[in-house]
């Protein structure tokens, strides 16, 4: 026994019980209160298709109690009622229901006598589904441990592939899977139940199966025993994957099936799709048809045969097809007294079963239907009535049958939603009164109840045909041995022929027993019966549908939106057919003409967390990362990278770089190798500068623009040999630059090959007046300014590590950017710090680097430029070489050069001790006009004041121009400078 809590009460359940079966067995009859009228609702479908048992489980709202297994200790709460399910104050709305007609909100709040904002809080309190509990809403990650934990790490994604995917594990799905598997296909069978077998698990019948199906051996056995045998047969096959408890919720392009299984989403890709999704029942529409203990027939069978729950004492079975006879038998076998068997047909397909029912002294009413159910919180009796050939109730024939349980076997609807998502169509079959598949897309097969035919023999053979067809049409099968394929084609022919024979017989039988259509009871005055529920999700009654159709919403799609029918949690599973019938009746169009609404994924609600999957955020660490941690660096995020922000203090680090030497880990820079005969040509075309004339061993700064002339990236380009260039890009932008270069190389058909070498290389920048002294200790490469001038490069060993050395100076000092195999990172770093001790070397972080580069007015693309900046505005006109015949952005830049720029990037120095921040707005000196914004700003130790860069209108692009920076509501004075703040001639850089 398992114990759990329901509304604070201790409950017990058997292993395998669902919440609903355990509660029902403990005497609970009301499972929810309805959406609008707060009417009591009980179990209906017992299969997760209707909205009647939605509950809050361990804080997760809207869990279907009839499919959720009981776990020890779980906390279950009812929803949408106060103070309790049995006594809900808001059920008073039910008494004034006639004031809430269809379109209530539209009609009441469009020209307000009542202000929406005044009543919104009341209406929100009264309507709506479950509440999200506080702790869940704040997503603290402290969810319950088992199963439904809300912590993101419990969600995951899985990818699967199959030759044949079979959706639906009922008898025909199982035989489809077995046949496809026998033929050699890799099969995945998807079923939403904990065990395979479909209705065989709970129908409780003794099977009679024809020898012709090839499965005659199962004849005479109990259906549940056959279900277990078949399940074992499927699970034992090596080329078969069974996904139980898994619901296919959507079919996407290229046969991608979205499947939800608990907290996981499975992406299944299959060559062929077999749909064996079956059919579900829905209730017919009569007065008080929503009372607790009015069940769908199969719901009763599930309760009795799956969970061993006796659902009532005195039952009435209402039917219009042969499945009602099966329910009657289930009830009699369970010892429930049958008060009456009511069938709207005059003849049944299984007379021997009817005879058994009559033998048991049960009153049978053929050609009768239910007019009304009576009772307040539970059904206590039904009013039944004769029907004529048109399906009209015959006035005056009413009889009252008292009972405490009503079973409805009033129609099947094919579960074609997923099938429709493949683009395959369904049409309404007047004889079968169901939408059946037609015009199947290639690679799509159907079988079983989904075809509108409810016959086990046919289902088995249809399954075999579908499975075999799917397998023999696999591209891979054409290559398999002739003989085997020949044999499969033969048996496919045989079964196909048998299926059409049997189907013909089945249709003849349907014609013989066909009765009138009493899906929605109507008779003079029935409009006053305002509790004939069509949609139990949204509390839409028959009158609402008629009225809406009458008001002009007579297209099924507009009717849906206006009345909200089919738009509730069940998404039309209970109400689609009845609303169609009503619409067709009012408009005089046939059901086929009326058509069905389109159903999009997801077929069942899927948790957002499951769709999102596990929270897997990529993190990139440089090869030196753990050394930074050892040194006590404060780490910051830079895109996916982790970088040291600062080690000790900006002042100390700044001083080291400016006065002796500093080292910074720049492994996050993007690095690309460009090789090939046309490598120079490619770079000339993609960068605004010229690189084909660059001498081997030299470096040059470059800017990449797009054809609109917008700056995309910048970096250095170094020529290592005639056909080999080495490029650095902005941190985080390397993937883009790679794609960009490869694209142009492809589009221009150039002999140039781009390799992203970022992950393979570590890099440090050694900068400062003592940088040369430090490095010369570790390398034989001549670093003297004559041999290794600014903007040149060399390949050589430093500390025994093979390196590329670039003499560039982002921070404005003598310095080398050294690239080396990433695996030497820690050794290289330690060696540099050790060798630099005598010079007072200090590691410096990103924050210090930002101060250093800002003093040099070195631009950071994306920080000091935006999505509209061209090189002229960025004050980098010198990088644009118009003498080239063509390059990316040339046409736009030629045009831009002729025009006065709209804004210019300038440097500025704040007056006195005033401070500016990144993003502060800039105004004219008199404060009257907005002229731009600050892109970067920091305190400069060199200047002793706050300095920065700003994009401003061109009239301020002159030395000494006065501007004001708005900071903390004050307009602080600043002065424009065009030269760098530090070492404007670049003497230190070149030293």
């Amino acid at each position, binding site marked *: 026994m398992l114990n759990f809590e329901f509304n604070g009460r201790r409950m017990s359940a058997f292993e395998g019980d669902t919440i609903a079966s355990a509660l029902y067995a403990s005497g609970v009859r009301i499972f929810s209160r309805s959406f609008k009228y707060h009417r009591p609702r009980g179990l209906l479908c017992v299969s997760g298709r209707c909205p009647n048992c939605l509950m809050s489980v361990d804080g997760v709202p809207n869990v279907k109690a009839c499919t959720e297994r009981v776990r020890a200790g779980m906390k279950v709460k009812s929803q949408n009622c106060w103070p309790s399910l049995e006594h809900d104050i808001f059920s008073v709305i039910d008494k004034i229901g006639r004031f809430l007609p269809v379109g209530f909100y539209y009609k009441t709040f469009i020209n307000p006598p009542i202000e929406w904002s005044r009543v919104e809080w009341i209406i929100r309190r009264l309507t709506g589904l479950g509440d999200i509990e506080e702790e869940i809403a704040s997503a603290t990650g402290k969810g319950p441990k088992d199963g439904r934990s809300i912590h993101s790490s419990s969600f995951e994604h899985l990818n699967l592939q199959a030759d044949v995917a079979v959706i639906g594990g009922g008898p025909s799905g199982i035989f489809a899977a077995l046949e496809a598997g026998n033929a050699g296909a890799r099969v995945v069978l998807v079923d939403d139940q904990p065990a395979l077998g479909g209705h065989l698990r709970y129908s409780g019948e003794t099977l009679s199966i024809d020898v012709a199906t090839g499965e005659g051996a199962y004849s005479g056995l109990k259906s549940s025993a056959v279900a277990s045998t078949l399940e074992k047969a499927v699970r034992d096959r090596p080329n078969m994957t069974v996904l139980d408890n898994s619901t296919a919720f959507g079919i996407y*392009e*290229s046969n*991608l099936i979205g499947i939800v299984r608990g907290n996981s989403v499975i992406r299944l*890709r299959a060559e062929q799709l077999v749909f064996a999704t079956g059919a579900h029942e829905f209730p017919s529409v009569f007065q008080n048809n929503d009372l607790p203990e009015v069940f769908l027939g199969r719901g009763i069978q599930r309760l009795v045969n799956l969970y061993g729950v006796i659902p009532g004492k005195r039952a009435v079975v209402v039917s219009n097809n042969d499945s009602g006879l099966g329910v009657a038998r289930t009830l009699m076998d369970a010892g429930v007294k049958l008060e009456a068997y009511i069938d709207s047909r005059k003849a049944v397909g299984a007379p021997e079963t009817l005879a058994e029912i009559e033998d048991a002294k049960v009153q049978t009413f053929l050609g009768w239907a239910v007019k009304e159910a009576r009772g307040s919180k539970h059904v206590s009796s039904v009013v039944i009535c004769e029907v004529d050939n048109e399906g009209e109730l015959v006035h005056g024939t009413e009889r009252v049958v008292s009972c405490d349980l009503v079973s409805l076997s009033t129609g099947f609807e094919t579960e074609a939603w997923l099938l429709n998502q493949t*683009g395959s169509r369904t049409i309404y079959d007047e004889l079968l009164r169901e939408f059946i598949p037609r015009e199947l897309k290639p690679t799509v097969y159907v079988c079983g109840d989904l075809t509108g035919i409810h016959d086990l023999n046919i289902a088995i053979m249809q399954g075999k045909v579908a499975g075999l067809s799917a397998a023999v049409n696999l591209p891979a099968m054409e290559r398999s041995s002739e003989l085997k394929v020949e044999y499969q084609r033969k048996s496919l022919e045989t079964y196909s022929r048998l299926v059409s024979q049997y189907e013909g017989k089945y249709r003849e039988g349907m014609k013989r027993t066909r009765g009138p259509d009493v899906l929605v009871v109507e008779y003079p005055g029935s409009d006053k019966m305002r509790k004939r529920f069509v949609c139990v999700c949204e509390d839409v009654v028959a009158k609402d549908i008629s009225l809406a159709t009458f008001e002009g919403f007579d297209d099924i799609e507009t009717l849906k939106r206006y009345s909200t029918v089919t738009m509730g949690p069940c998404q039309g599973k209970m109400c689609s057919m009845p609303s169609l019938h009503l619409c067709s009746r009012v408009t005089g169009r046939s059901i086929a003409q009326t058509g069905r609404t389109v159903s999009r994924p997801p077929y069942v609600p899927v948790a957002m967390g499951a769709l999102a999957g596990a929270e897997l955020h990529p993190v990139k660490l440089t090869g030196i990362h753990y050394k930074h941690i050892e040194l006590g660096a404060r780490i910051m995020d830079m895109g996916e990278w982790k970088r040291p922000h600062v080690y000790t203090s900006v002042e100390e680090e700044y001083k080291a770089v400016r006065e002796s030497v500093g080292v910074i880990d720049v492994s996050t820079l993007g690095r690309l190798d460009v090789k090939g005969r046309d490598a120079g040509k490619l770079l000339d075309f993609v960068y605004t500068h010229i690189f084909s004339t660059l001498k081997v061993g030299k470096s040059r700064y470059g800017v990449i623009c797009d*054809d609109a002339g917008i700056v995309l990236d910048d970096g250095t380009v170094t020529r290592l040999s005639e056909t080999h260039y080495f490029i650095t890009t902005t941190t985080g932008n390397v993937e883009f630059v790679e*794609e960009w270069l490869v*694209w142009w190389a492809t589009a221009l058909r150039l002999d140039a090959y781009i390799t992203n070498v970022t992950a393979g290389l570590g890099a440090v920048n050694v900068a400062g007046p003592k940088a040369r002294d430090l490095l010369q200790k570790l390398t034989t490469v001549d670093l003297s300014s004559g041999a290794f001038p600014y903007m040149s490069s060399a390949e050589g060993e430093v500390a025994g590590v093979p390196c590329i050395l670039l003499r560039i100076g982002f921070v404005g000092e003598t310095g080398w950017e050294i690239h080396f195999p990433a695996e030497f990172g820690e050794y290289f770093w330690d060696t540099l710090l050790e060798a630099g001790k005598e010079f007072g070397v200090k590691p410096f972080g990103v924050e210090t680097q930002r101060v250093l580069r800002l003093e040099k007015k070195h631009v950071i693309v994306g920080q000091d430029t935006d999505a509209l900046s061209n090189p002229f505005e960025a004050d980098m006109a010198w990088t644009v070489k118009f003498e080239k*015949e063509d390059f990316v952005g040339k046409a*736009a830049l030629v045009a831009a050069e002729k025009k006065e720029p709209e804004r210019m990037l300038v440097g500025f120095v704040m007056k006195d001790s005033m401070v500016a921040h990144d993003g502060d707005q800039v105004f004219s000196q008199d404060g009257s006009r907005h002229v731009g914004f600050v892109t970067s700003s920091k305190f400069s130790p060199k200047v002793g004041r706050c300095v920065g860069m700003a994009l401003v209108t061109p009239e301020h692009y002159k030395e000494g121009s006065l501007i004001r920076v708005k900071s903390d509501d004050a307009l602080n004075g600043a002065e424009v400078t065009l030269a760098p703040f530090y070492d404007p001639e670049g003497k230190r850089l070149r030293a």
Partner: protein
Amino acid sequence: MGFLLECPNCGKRDVYEFRFGGEAHKRPRVNSSSEEWMKYVYMRENVAGVQQEWWFHRLGCHKWFLAIRDTRDNSVSI
């Protein structure tokens, strides 16, 4: 969106392995009119139907290729 795309190097792969590179249009000559450049840089056809477009196999061979895709049902040919 979950269709398969056939990379000429790697074969059929999930579309999430690729980066969409937009409609394929011929780049104007450098001295073309500004109208032509404006059209090339800013205007897109956005057809409901078949179009030629660029794709980059970012989680595969890192190659660009042209594919013909029907924007209505994402069926692709090369």
